[in-house]
């Protein structure tokens, strides 16, 4: 072994990766060459330093602590928060465990600057009243399909229940439930389950995930109110204050905030998700306790305002059963995870979104699930049963969405004869650059 060959093997040698024969040859060369010996010692010395540095930090675990602080401190005026989104989106909120008691019998609407200042003061006091929560449980109603995205707004649908349990201390854990979809973060990892057989696991303890961010922001009541106040002051969001008498005879303050999503009416995502909708938020505060009692969100649509979310129950600092943060998946669940680079990955990288849509549907038509699985993450049996044997009627020209997806209009005929005409959402996976199915079937 000469000097160059020996030096090429330094790292493999130091890492114990060399075959025995190569290692002996390397050692023999080092014994006879002072320059290479000195060079190897420098490499080994650096390796020892790196190992020592890593060992010193072995027990460090900052993720949860940092993310809790991030959640608590991210509400400067220029920063986008749930509440600012809500305001932008003109939601109507009315918080409170006694939302049902908000049958208002008398209303005095105030829009003067003085009234707006008072609205801010009420919100500020409401924020102080719920500072330092250790846990929270929210239960509300959302117009959405049971299995669809947690953030999706579907005005044409009936209300379905949506719940959030969140433990802030001692360790951050949370769970969000809709009738057909559950997301759980147990302090170690984050899991999504969509009935009947779709699962996806993220190996990190995410403070929010799977489009639940808007609900988490509501759960951080104090921060939410504070950040809304900041947004109102900094951006001049229109605010109105109404003094009302509730059905319980008590005096209430109803604060409405109007907000725009910033998306044009022609944007495909406009009014489809909480983050992309024009809404009005309504908060109802009890003037005696200063507590927020209820929240409602109204969607501004061409046909008029429509209530799309109402928070029925806010339980601060409840004792949460640890079992809430555990999720046992059925045995037939297909689990998704990081996509893998394929041997012929480049072939799929080179596809346009229309070509990917065509390839995805054609594979389903042939029931070639190995090929189809290259576009799904994961591909559960329920999807195979639904799409198997389909015929492609047409694939349209794609258009881009504001969330980075490409949307491909399609028309397919399913095996049962049903014709489906919709828009397929495809995104490129960041690690493999391949298109994957993101929705629309």
């Amino acid at each position, binding site marked *: 072994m000469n000097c160059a060959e020996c030096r*090429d093997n*330094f*790292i*493999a040698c130091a*890492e114990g*990766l060399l075959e025995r024969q190569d290692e002996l040859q390397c050692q023999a060369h080092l014994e006879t060459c002072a320059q290479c010996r000195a060079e190897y010692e*420098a*490499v080994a010395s*650096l*390796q020892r*330093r*790196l*190992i020592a*540095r*890593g*060992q*010193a*930090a*072995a027990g*460090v*675990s*900052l*993720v949860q*602590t*940092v*993310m809790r*602080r*991030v959640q608590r*401190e*991210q509400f*400067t005026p*220029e*920063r*986008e928060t749930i509440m600012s989104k809500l305001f932008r989106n003109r939601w109507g909120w009315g918080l409170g465990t006694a939302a049902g008691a908000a049958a208002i019998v008398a209303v005095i609407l105030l829009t003067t600057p003085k009234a707006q200042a008072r609205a801010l003061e009420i919100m500020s006091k409401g924020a102080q009243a719920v500072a330092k929560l250790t846990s929270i449980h929210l239960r509300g109603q959302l117009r959405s399909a049971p299995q669809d995205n947690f953030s999706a707004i579907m005005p044409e649908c009936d209300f379905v229940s949506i719940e959030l349990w969140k433990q802030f201390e001692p360790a951050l854990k949370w769970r969000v439930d809709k009738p057909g979809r559950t997301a759980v973060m147990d302090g170690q990892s984050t899991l999504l389950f969509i009935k009947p057989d779709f699962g996806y696991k993220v190996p*990190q*303890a*995410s*403070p*929010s*995930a799977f489009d639940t*961010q808007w609900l988490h922001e509501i759960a951080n009541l104090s921060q939410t109110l504070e950040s809304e106040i900041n947004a109102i002051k900094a951006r001049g969001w229109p605010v109105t204050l109404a003094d009302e008498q509730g059905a319980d005879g008590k005096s209430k303050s109803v604060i409405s905030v109007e907000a725009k999503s910033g998306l044009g009416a022609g944007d495909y995502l406009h009014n489809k998700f909480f*983050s992309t909708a024009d809404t009005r938020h309504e908060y109802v505060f009890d003037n005696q306790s200063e507590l927020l009692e209820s929240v409602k969100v109204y969607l501004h649509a061409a046909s008029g305002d429509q209530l799309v979310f109402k928070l029925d129950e806010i339980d601060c600092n409840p004792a949460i059963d640890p079992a809430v943060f555990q999720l046992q998946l059925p045995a037939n669940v297909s689990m998704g*995870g*990081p*996509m*893998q*680079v394929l041997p012929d990955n480049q072939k799929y990288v080179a596809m346009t979104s229309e070509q990917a849509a065509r390839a995805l549907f054609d594979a389903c038509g042939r029931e070639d699930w190995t090929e189809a699985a290259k576009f799904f993450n994961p591909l559960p049996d329920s999807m195979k049963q639904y799409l198997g044997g389909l015929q492609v009627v047409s694939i349209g020209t794609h258009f881009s969405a504001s969330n*980075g997806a490409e949307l491909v209009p399609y028309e397919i005929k399913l095996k049962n004869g049903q014709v489906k005409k919709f828009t397929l959402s495809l995104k490129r*996976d*960041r*690690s493999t650059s391949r298109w994957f199915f993101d929705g629309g079937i």
Partner: protein
Amino acid sequence: MDLTDKEYVERCRDGHQEDFSLLVDRYQKPLFSYLAARVGNFAQAEEAAQESFVRAFLSLKKLRKPESFYSWLLGIAGRVAQEQFRSDLRRRQIHEAAETMMTSAADADEEYPLEEAIAVLPENHRQVILLRYYEGLSCQEVATRLAMPLGTVTKTLSRAFLLLRQDLQARERAEQTVNLNEQP
């Protein structure tokens, strides 16, 4: 899935704030090592690391080169460490402060330039170094994690070692020059 720093930063800016936890996970250990070497106290290093990450998150929109996230984070951490030290001075009595300064100086090691040198490595080199030595993965586990052949991992490590040694030698030379200039 392992994205690049730039991609994580861009996702955070796009509203996927939860992805910041993945950047914390990626850099918590080297950042802690860097701060521990600077302040000479593990508890203070952990506190400073938390503060650094939070400030980084809150200033993410100001980061002009997302691919340089880690270098930028170290810069923030350096300022946090300085502030922490000054704050300690204000809090304590003068004699206690003097004692702390002496203790810190004695406990702190000279290794923190190692993390600075790691910060300016090309991203693929840096990831291999961090996974192998700070996350404690074997070379084979690094290869699996990054979906690359084992030979590519060892070649990347070789190149990273070469760059680190060059950087550290340059820092030592600069330090020696400063020391010479400071002599009366």
